[in-house]
């Protein structure tokens, strides 16, 4: 078992937080994990991404060329990372910021790949925190793959927020659940 996920979006969209949380939850669930952020001043305003690996074997390389999973929160990320998605791989894409187009180019890009279009920004707003779209994405992702339990998620989230941001626990959890149920609905609707 080995999951390789790249998360990508704007600097302010909480990409690193989400990736880190994913790895942490994976670890708490008993897996080997690695989390590799891309960082630095170029992040300000630009795109930002990170790579998470969750596996039941030792992880050597934390770098992944062709991930099996993508979480894409904005448009530039879509064009940057979809080509790297393994064929047969799955991407959760924020449909609020990435427009589905009916061009041939677009078609070629997504051929062989499964794209889950979710209005993550709207879902986050519905959950009461427009900033928590990253948690919606994690909710959707875990709703789909069931990598870790609810309890573990809460433990990891609490750890990530620390004392200073403990008050944000509830809103983040709500967003997580929003994402999770959105997936459920989506899957049921298919």
């Amino acid at each position, binding site marked *: 078992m080995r999951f390789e996920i790249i998360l990508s979006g704007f600097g302010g969209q909480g990409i690193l937080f989400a990736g*880190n949380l994913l*790895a*942490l939850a994976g*670890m708490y669930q008993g897996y*080997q*994990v*690695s*989390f*590799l*952020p891309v*960082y*630095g*001043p170029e992040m300000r305003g630009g795109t930002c991404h990170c790579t998470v690996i969750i596996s039941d074997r030792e*992880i*050597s*390389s*934390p*770098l*992944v*060329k062709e991930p099996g999973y993508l979480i894409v929160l904005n448009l530039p990320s879509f064009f940057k990372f979809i080509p790297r998605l393994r064929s047969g791989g799955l991407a959760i894409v924020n449909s609020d910021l990435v427009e589905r187009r009916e061009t041939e180019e677009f078609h070629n890009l997504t051929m062989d790949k499964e794209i889950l279009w979710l209005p993550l920004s709207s879902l986050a707003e519905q959950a009461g925190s427009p900033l928590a779209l990253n948690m919606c994405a994690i909710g959707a992702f875990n709703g789909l793959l069931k990598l870790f339990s609810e309890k573990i998620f809460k433990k990891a989230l609490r750890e990530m927020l620390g004392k200073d941001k403990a008050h944000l626990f509830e809103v983040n959890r709500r967003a997580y659940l929003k994402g999770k149920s959105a997936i459920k609905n989506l899957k049921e609707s298919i």
Partner: protein
Amino acid sequence: MKSKRILVKGVEAIALGALAGGCNCYFGYPITPQNEIPELMSVELPKRGGVFLQAESETSAINMVLGASAVGARAMTSSSSPGISLMSEGFSYLIALELPCVIVNVMRGGPGLGGIEASQGDYFQAVKAPGHGDGKFLVLAPYSCNEAYELTAKAFELAEKYRNPVMILSDAILGQMKEPLTLKSPKIKTLEKDDWILSGAKDRPGRVIKSLFLDSAELAERNLKLKQKYQKMEVEIKFERLAEGSEELIIVAFGSMARICKEAVFNLRARGYPVGFFRPITLFPFPRKALCELAESHQKRKKFLVVELNCGQMVEDVASALCGKGDILSLAYPPSVLPFPEDIEREIIKCLNLSTSLNV
């Protein structure tokens, strides 16, 4: 009781390792990608009665380390490439004065300001010429968070054992990636230092720690003493070998690059390719003998593919170690475009098919 597992960055593992190793004072100057070290130390050291001080520059930081070490502290600094260059003079003094301390270089792309992503471009600087003169560091190159933690803790003991600075040579990948770290209390010895540290000349004559030897014979003697010390350090040589000897090609890599290579080697071995893996953990002293033994371990002449994230540096040490006992191939990725395991696999297969050796 199971020991605690936490998810940390490599640089945090280094800082935690330092604390586990008894580090009681830190002086440094901010530079990406290792700011988590001073930031963590600024919280933790004062809590434990230790000293944290942000210096006004790397030059002053290393000199604060020098002072603290001379009075017996387990002192440390950390920086990244340009900051390390600024410490060169201090390094040479620390070596000459035989003062123990731990220096962390989380390498980033160079030369100049370069970039902030990973690099192994300071290999030569670390192992050949940390400063002017002949002095050397003991250089340790961890490749995982656990190893970063353990080697850093151990570094304090080694520094005192040899009265010599020890460098942890890491890079921005290992520095910035997070993975589980198993926290345990490593057994790190503390050495008796009362016979050489400065502590006030109470009931004894004043003591002097100096590196100036205007008498050329005295200076030569000091140099010989240091050289002998480096030879003694060879008992500390560490490496990871994943080869039975029958392989046709051995990958040699250290640090983060070794992780990427190891994955490639695993994959190829699973597919039956005659490929082995050799990872120096001490970069100085360099595991010359172990490499030679590997080269001679079977009849067939082997290829050694040295993979680095620079323009080709460690390959020279491998060549000098093997002295013709194998074919040396260099796969040097100039910082900071990282290869993926797949890329390494492709290169290995190419090399396996190669009939002649490249001249490096």
